[in-house]
C-alpha cells in the first residue's frame, strides 16, 4: 500500500508529471532492461523478450486539476480546468499547489448550486489582497485536489486513483513478469486527461504489434445509477468498447481466454461516455491490435475515488499473464 499511497500523493496534473515520473522510474528500474523519458515526458520502459514482437502496455501518470487564470484584487483566485472537472464534485474541497499552498474551492454566493459552472467558483487561499496572493501563487500555477488515502478492508479511498492505480498495476506486473515472449514496453503516459497526446507520441515511437491499456472505469452498482455491467468486486474488467475505441475482438478473446485459463475473476466493460489512451494507440501508424483491462472504480474525477484491491489484484494477474504469453 505504501507504493500506491506514494503514487497517489504525488503532484502530477496534466503537463507537470515529473514528480510522479521520478517515483515510477525508481520503482521500476530494477525490473526492466531500458528506461527513457521522451520529449513530452512519457516514460518508456522496455523489458526485452525472445521474439521480435512488441507489446505496449500503458497507464497515464497525469491527474485532473485546475490552473489559476486570474487573481482578484481581494486575493481570490479564479481558475480553469485541467482535464474534465465537474464543478459540483469539487465545491468546498481543498486544492493544493506544488509549493504546498492550499485553498478552499467556493462558489459565488448568489449562484445556485444546480446551475453551477466553473466560472462561478473561486479558490480562497486565505490571502487578503492581490499582492498577498501573488506572493504565494501566480497565474498559470497548477493545483490538484487534496485527498486522504485510506484502506478499509479491501477497498482503497484516495484521490488520483485515475490513473495512479494503473501505474501501480504496471509496476507490479513488471515486478512479477518472468519470461515474456515478446518485448514489453511499460509506458507511463502524460497528458491523457487533456489531449491524449502522450499516448499518440509514445505509440508512434514504439510501433507496437499489440497494446493493452490499463485505466479506471465506472461501475453500475451504486444507488439509482445508469445501467452498466461492471460491478466492484467482480474482478478485472475486460473492455469491449468505450467512447474512443472498440477493442479488437482478437485481443478481447485473448484476454478472456487467459483469464479463464488462470482462473482470474473477470467481467466485461462497455463505457458509454469517456475514452482512454487506447483511442490514440489503436490508430497509430498502420494500426495496433488494442485491448484494455480496466479497474472498476467509483466516484471517478472527484477528490476521493474508490477501488477494490481484489479487483486490482485480478488486473495485475491478468496483465502479467497476458504479457508473458502473448505472441501473435
Amino acid at each position: 500500500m505504501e507504493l500506491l499511497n506514494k503514487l497517489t500523493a504525488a503532484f502530477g496534473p496534466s503537463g507537470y508529471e515529473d514528480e510522479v515520473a521520478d517515483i515510477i522510474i525508481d520503482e521500476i528500474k530494477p525490473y526492466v532492461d531500458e528506461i527513457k523519458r521522451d520529449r513530452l515526458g512519457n516514460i518508456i520502459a522496455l523489458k526485452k523478450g525472445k521474439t521480435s514482437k512488441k507489446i505496449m502496455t500503458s497507464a497515464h501518470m497525469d491527474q485532473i486539476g485546475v490552473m489559476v487564470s486570474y487573481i482578484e484584487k481581494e486575493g481570490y483566485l479564479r481558475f480553469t480546468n485541467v482535464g474534465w472537472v465537474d464543478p459540483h464534485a469539487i465545491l468546498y474541497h481543498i486544492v493544493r499547489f506544488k509549493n504546498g499552498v492550499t485553498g478552499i474551492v467556493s462558489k459565488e454566493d448568489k449562484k445556485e448550486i444546480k446551475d453551477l459552472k466553473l466560472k462561478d467558483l473561486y479558490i480562497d487561499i486565505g490571502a487578503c489582497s492581490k499582492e498577498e496572493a501573488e506572493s504565494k501563487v501566480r497565474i498559470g500555477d497548477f493545483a490538484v485536489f487534496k485527498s486522504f488515502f485510506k484502506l478499509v478492508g479491501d477497498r482503497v479511498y484516495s484521490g488520483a486513483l485515475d490513473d495512479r492505480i494503473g501505474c501501480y498495476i504496471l509496476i507490479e506486473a513488471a515486478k512479477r513478469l518472468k519470461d515474456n515472449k515478446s518485448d514489453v514496453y511499460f509506458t507511463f503516459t502524460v497528458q491523457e486527461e487533456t489531449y491524449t497526446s502522450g499516448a499518440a507520441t509514445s505509440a508512434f515511437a514504439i510501433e507496437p504489434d499489440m497494446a493493452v491499456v490499463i485505466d479506471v472505469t465506472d461501475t453500475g452498482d451504486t444507488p439509482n445509477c445508469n445501467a452498466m455491467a461492471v460491478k466492484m468486486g467482480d474482478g478485472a474488467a475486460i473492455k469491449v468498447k468505450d467512447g474512443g475505441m472498440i477493442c479488437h475482438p482478437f485481443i478481447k478473446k485473448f484476454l478472456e481466454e487467459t483469464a479463464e485459463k488462470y482462473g482470474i475473476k473477470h467481467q466485461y466493460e462497455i463505457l458509454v461516455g469517456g475514452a482512454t489512451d487506447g483511442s490514440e494507440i489503436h490508430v497509430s501508424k498502420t494500426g495496433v491490435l488494442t485491448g484494455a483491462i480496466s479497474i472498476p472504480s467509483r466516484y471517478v474525477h472527484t477528490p476521493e475515488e474508490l477501488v477494490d484491491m481484489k479487483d486490482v489484484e485480478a488486473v495485475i494477474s491478468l496483465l502479467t499473464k497476458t504479457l508473458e504469453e502473448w505472441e501473435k
Partner: protein
Amino acid sequence: MDGKELLFKLSNLNAVSGSEYLLKNTLSDAFKDYVDDIDEGNLGDFIAHKKGSSDGKFKIMIAAHADEVGLLVTGIDERGFIHFNEVAGIDPKTLPAQEVIIHGKKDVYGVIGAKPPHVLSSDDMKKAVKIEDMVIDTGLDKDEVLKLITIGDFITIKREAKNLLGNFMTGKALDDRSGIAILYECARELQKMNHYADVYFVSSVMEETGCGGVSTSTYKINPQIGIAVDVTFGDTYLDDDDVDGDCGKGIPIYVGPNLHPKLTEKLIEVAKENNIPHSISVSPGATGTDAWEMQIQREGVPTLLISLPLKYMHTSTEVIDYRDVKTAGKLLAQFISEIKDGDSYEL
C-alpha cells in the same frame, strides 16, 4: 460475379465496427480476378492492389468503409431478456419490432419487443421508446442464453437485401458497402484500361464510430492521391438544404477545404467530358467521411470525395439506385486512366 451480386452478398454479411475483417473472404473472392495482390491491414482493413505502369511510384488509394451501424449486448436479466445499446448512430425509433441476430458463441435469433397497441395509452404512443427500455427476446430461458451470449457481443438487424421497382434496391449496411461495390465496378472498368497510377482499393475500418480507422490504411499505403467514397442523403422528399443527392440523377462531387482544389477540378472535368451525370456538393469544413483523416496523414495526401445518394441512412431499410453505383465506378476509372506521368497538381 457482377457488382450488384457482390453488393447483395456484402449487405447480408454482419460486421459492426471493429469486426470488418469478417468481410475478407467475400471481398478477396470478388476482387482477386481484377487486381494483382491482396493484403490485410492490422485492424482488419482490406487492401486490393492493381498495378499501374508507374510501378509503385504513383499510388491512388480509393476507400469505402466496411463497418455498419449496430448494437451490442450490455446485460442479460433474470428472465433471460437481453439489454443492449448502440455501437454507432442508430436511431432507437427504428428498433421496436425489429428482428435481430446476436453474434455470440453462435448466431442467435431474437426480436426487439414492442407492446401491442391494445395495452398502450395514447400518451405512451406519443413518446419515442428509449433504448434502455427495450429488450431482445430470444425465446430462450436465462441459462440457455448465458451459454451462448456474453456482454459485449455484437448485434445486427436481420435483413436480406432485395430489389425494389426499377433500379432501386434495399438492404442494411448500404452505407457504405455500396461504396465498396463502387470500388468493385471501378476495378472491373479498369480491366479494359491502361493506367499509370497503381490503384489500391481499400475497405476501411471504424468510420461509423468516428475512430478514423482509414488513417491506418492511408499511413500504410502512403498514396499520392486519396479518394473517399461514401454515401450522402438522397431524401429529396424532405425540404432540407442538407440533402445534396438525388438517387439515379448522378454522383455528388465534393468541394471545400477537405478536398484538393486542383484534383477536384480535374475530376469534375473528367465527369463533364465523359457525360457522366454528377453534381457539386460543398463542404465548408469537415466532410464527416474518411476524407477528413486521409488528408492529414504523414506529409499530407491530396484528397477527393464522391458520394452515393442513399435514402433512409443508418436504418436497415436503406435504398439506393444501383445505376449510381455503376456511374460512380465509371467516373473513378475514367479519372484514374487520365492521371498521367509528369502531371503536376502543385498548389
